[in-house]
């Protein structure tokens, strides 16, 4: 008795408060759209930044040199670009447009022609034991990637070998026959075995919102604590809280009644954000969208539980403004709402587990980015969120019952 009446009354008050409705329902969508267009690009830029940018100066312009370029370009994790000349290559290294530059010299063809089978197979004594210089090639890295040139040299060498080795082998009649036979017999198998080159990271609008929508949805779910605490302050200011406290309902019923409307609003807010994410921004709901519902519910429970706890701590509007804003911003920052959690340092990732936000984000990440999400992870996250909500609500109840009304 009483819970439902208070819930309906508060829902009615929330519906009449257009400012609160705008803040809770419309603002998050606008916020995500704006951030998607601005800082959201960082995510795609960051993905692109993960690729090693290799500039290739092809002074040889021959068929083999072109093949070498194609092979390097097909290596996953690299972004190969042709560079016109050495001066341009130096400039690119300086301004960071290229991480590493590979030079294919004019004598590349002739140096390859000079290679024998021994140079290919004897890595200790063959000509290629001297590295790429043996075939008039050179690798140079920029300041940011000092030390990477040796690694890149090995990678490029392997690409060169894939091109050069068959050419050298063909000059030997025995090897040529063996190669021809092998090519005929295993052609189909070879095609099947051929692994496609890794796809570059998809960089489009959906990947931005796949990250942004859940992150800001979690942040805005906890934004609710501000309005929830204000609702309590308002009741106190009006004197209606005293009426509620003296009516024949228990404190727990009163607090449930005050919490439920915000739980409904929080769930509605999350559903609207997911719907907006899909309709407006083309985000995916993952392979099993139904599993998002328990995460949404538990996130809302933990947010409203925290809201209730805060409501029993603060006494004035200014306290609400400072405490709630601090909590919303700091917890969102710690947990990784402002950027993908993977970008956070490991220590920070561990610290963030003390916040309910982090568990919500982990659950959403599992459901939205994994083709086969692990239910155990989602269950663990939901349990943690439920625990946060329950403990906060219980502490809030105890605090509320101990509060004495003072003149």
């Amino acid at each position, binding site marked *: 008795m009483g819970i439902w009446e208070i819930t309906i009354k508060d829902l009615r008050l929330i519906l009449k408060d257009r400012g609160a409705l705008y803040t809770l329902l419309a603002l998050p969508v606008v916020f995500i759209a704006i951030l998607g267009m601005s800082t959201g690009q960082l995510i795609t830029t960051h993905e692109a930044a993960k690729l090693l940018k290799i500039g290739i100066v092809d002074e040889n312009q021959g068929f083999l040199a072109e093949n070498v370029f194609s092979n390097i370009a097909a290596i996953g994790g690299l972004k190969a670009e042709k560079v016109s000349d050495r001066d341009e290559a130096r400039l690119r290294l300086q301004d960071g447009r290229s991480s590493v530059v590979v030079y294919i010299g004019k004598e590349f063809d002739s140096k390859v022609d000079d290679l024998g089978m021994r140079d290919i197979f004897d890595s200790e004594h063959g000509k290629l034991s001297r590295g790429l210089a043996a075939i008039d090639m050179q690798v140079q890295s920029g300041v940011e990637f000092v030390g990477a040139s040796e690694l890149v040299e090995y990678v490029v060498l392997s690409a060169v070998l894939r091109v050069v080795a068959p050419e050298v082998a063909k000059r030997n009649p025995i090897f040529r026959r063996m190669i021809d036979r092998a090519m005929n017999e295993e052609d189909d198998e070879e095609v099947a075995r051929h692994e496609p080159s890794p796809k570059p990271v998809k960089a489009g609008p959906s990947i931005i919102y796949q990250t942004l929508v859940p992150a800001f949805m979690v942040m805005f779910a906890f934004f609710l604590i501000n309005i929830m605490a204000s609702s309590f302050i308002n009741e106190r200011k009006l004197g*209606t809280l005293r009426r509620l406290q003296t009516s024949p309902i228990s404190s727990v019923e009163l607090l449930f009644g005050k919490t439920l409307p915000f739980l409904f609003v929080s769930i509605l807010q999350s559903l609207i954000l997911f719907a907006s994410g899909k309709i407006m921004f083309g985000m995916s709901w993952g392979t099993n969208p139904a599993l998002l519902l328990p995460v949404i519910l538990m996130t809302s429970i933990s947010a409203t539980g925290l809201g209730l706890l805060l409501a029993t701590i603060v006494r004035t509007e200014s306290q609400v403004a400072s405490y709630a804003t601090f909590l919303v911003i700091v917890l969102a920052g710690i947990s990784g709402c402002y950027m993908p959690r993977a970008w956070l340092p490991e220590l920070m990732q561990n610290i963030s587990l003390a916040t309910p936000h982090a568990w919500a984000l982990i659950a959403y990440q599992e459901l939205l980015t994994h083709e086969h999400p692990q239910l155990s992870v989602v269950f663990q996250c939901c349990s943690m969120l439920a625990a946060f909500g329950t403990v906060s609500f219980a502490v809030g109840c105890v605090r509320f019952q101990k509060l*004495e009304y003072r003149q």
Partner: protein
Amino acid sequence: MTDPNHNPAKRGEGLEVSHLRKSYGDLVAVDDLSFRVRPGEILGLIGPNGAGKSTCMMVIIGLLKPDAGTIKLNGQPYDASNREMRSHLGIVPQELAIYPELTARQNLRFFGSLYGLRGQRLDKQVDYVLDLTGLTRNADHTPSTFSGGMCRRLNFGIALLHEPRFVILDEPTVGIDPQSRTNLLDCIRQLSAKGVGVLYASHYMEEIEAVCHRVAIIDHGRLLQQGTLDELLDRSQAELSIRIGEIPSDVVAKLQSMATLQQDADGTTRVLVRENLSTQKQVRLTEMQSVMEVLGQADVPILGIETHEISLETLFLRLTGRKLRD
């Protein structure tokens, strides 16, 4: 107001407060306070700001825990966690405890439903209260469009929805027009006639005199006097005052030893005889004669001699003093 036909309550009936004490740290807000509100009786609780009235009411309705003392409702210790006991009380807080965004009817329906009223009974009670408080025509308007008096009436009506046995009013008429005040006082009389006990805290002495059967005057948390209006005012009876012009300082000293001097706003001085609230019922002629002799010897012009009955306000000021309170 006194009610000669008022029936004394049966033993144990009513809202009984005994030796109540509540302090905030070193500040004792209520100190050994005892009184009783019988069914159908209106008890006026008066005291200056900070006297402890509101704290006393907070303790009674269970929002504050007393340090000592007991509260009994019809002989049973009052337990604020007991829903049934809570539903015997109707509370009219000092502030307007209503939702400005909801209409008068929505406010009443909401608070009525908290007291378990449903369906037709809720409709009936809401209509009854709207009629009683004169808000029927404005039932579907929000309080933001109401005058101060209408808001006060709604605030009052909410406490009556569930037909409580006792109603506690904390300054319910602050800032309202005479019409609304009259309406509220009439409602309180109607409640009393129906057997509802009323504890009425107010600063307005004329209201207390108009509706209360008994009055309790408190200050600094302590009960100063308690009784019917007749009892309280009989104790002081009439007072005699001699209005005089300017007086020499040596005469002032003489007069102060036998009477009380009071400076009026117009510059004249008033010599109050029988200012002391003792229980004697006759004018002390000897004291009067002594004062007259002193005035005659000093050639002090006598501007007039007046007698007047002591009002509740005069009594209140005498008991609580004229010093401003925070």
